């Protein structure tokens, strides 16, 4: 990779901004996500911060089992996040609908509607697991920005 691509790759790894989308979650996962920003875990050290608008973010963190009311919002917000982007499904609800599977008002796991890159299962997942998931998403994001030809090169 040229020096500019390496700089861009490093910047994407070092500055993952999140947008948090709640699609009908019970708020357990949301609380654990916000806990990561609190003094005990302090993810700002890693450059992770919550953004106020989906257009400002790279990583879309989705909680909740995608209720019927939020389906349109999920699709719109996913479209609003600018490329390159990744999606993290936080908790067991977006992965499998958890205890709400089979309910008539649940539109199913998140992967039915938007492509998901990282799953962080748990009800709720531990903040360490969430941070791990976001770090993995940041790596995928940086890799996604690299042109196809360069992706085959060995990482130095």
């Amino acid at each position: 990779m040229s020096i500019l691509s390496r700089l861009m790759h490093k910047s994407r790894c070092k500055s993952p901004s999140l947008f948090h989308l709640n699609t009908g979650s019970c708020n357990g996962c949301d609380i654990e996500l916000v806990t990561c920003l609190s003094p005990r875990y302090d993810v700002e050290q890693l450059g992770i911060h919550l953004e106020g608008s989906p257009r400002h973010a790279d990583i879309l963190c989705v909680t909740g089992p995608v209720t019927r009311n939020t389906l349109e919002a999920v699709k719109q917000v996913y479209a609003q996040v600018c490329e390159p982007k990744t999606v993290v499904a936080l908790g067991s609800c977006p992965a499998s609908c958890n205890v709400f599977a089979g309910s008539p008002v649940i539109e199913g796991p998140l992967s039915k509607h938007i492509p998901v890159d990282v799953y962080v299962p748990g009800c709720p997942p531990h903040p360490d697991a969430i941070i791990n998931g976001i770090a993995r998403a940041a790596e995928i994001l940086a890799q996604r920005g690299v042109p196809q030809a360069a992706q085959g090169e060995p990482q130095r």
Partner: protein
Amino acid sequence: MNASAFINLFLFPGLLFAVPAAWFFVWGEHKVTARMQRRIGPPLLQPFYDFVKLLGKRTPSRRGLEANLLRLYPALSVLSLLGALALLPVFPRSLSFSGDGILLVALLELPSICFILAGFTSGSIYGEIGAIREAVLSVANNLVFLLAMVTIAVTRHTFRLSALAGPAIDPGHWLGVLGILICIPAKLRLNPFSTSSAEQEIYSGPLTEYAGAALGMWKLAHGLEWVALTGLVTTLILPVGGSLLGHALLFVAVSFLLALVLSAAAAATARFTLERSVRFYWQLAAVLALLAISSAVYMGLRS
């Protein structure tokens, strides 16, 4: 363009100094906020990485006048702040013309106007609300800011910046400096006057629809505003003279210290509502106006 103008615009306190300084001051703000909250906070290069990452985003293509205006506003903000920084009398008499204090105030005002216009042009309801809040707050805090500048100018009988630089015995001067300091949190949208960029209420306000390089420019403009406003106060309180390098370093150090103090105050306070913020500035403006007018009348009677 003569040599000293070139140096002021492009080297110090212009472009080459201003952009890294902007990132440094923004890092200082985040670090102080983190420390006040018993956290560790971001690494030193964080604002730089954020900026580079934003340059690499593939933004949606917009067409037409609206799109071009949206791209113009952050660029205009950055350019006007670079101009304001070039005008700062760090080394007085190097670049000065009568009335340049008024030009400085106008250049410092342009980013706020661009922010308001960007909110209305973006077509988003959050942009509109944020722009309205910023406009109302701007009217209120500019009263205090302009009164403070006028008070300082009255004590020296001129608006020429090179004459305004440096401390004075006159209480009117210190009143003006205090007035400018109190206006800075509203201009930078810091607590307790952060109502126009209240993420919990209006997403990102006027910047909601921005992405990529244009957003990076807005964040750079915010950092440059930090440097310009704290730099203005620093030039008004630091005695002139001494070696070039020593004075420049002292200027940066005192500006940064002011930035840290303002960030600590922001971290320690909560957000005022729009009504409360406006009422604060109007009351302050009334007091300042009274003091400024009486000071001017007193000086007129004396001379």
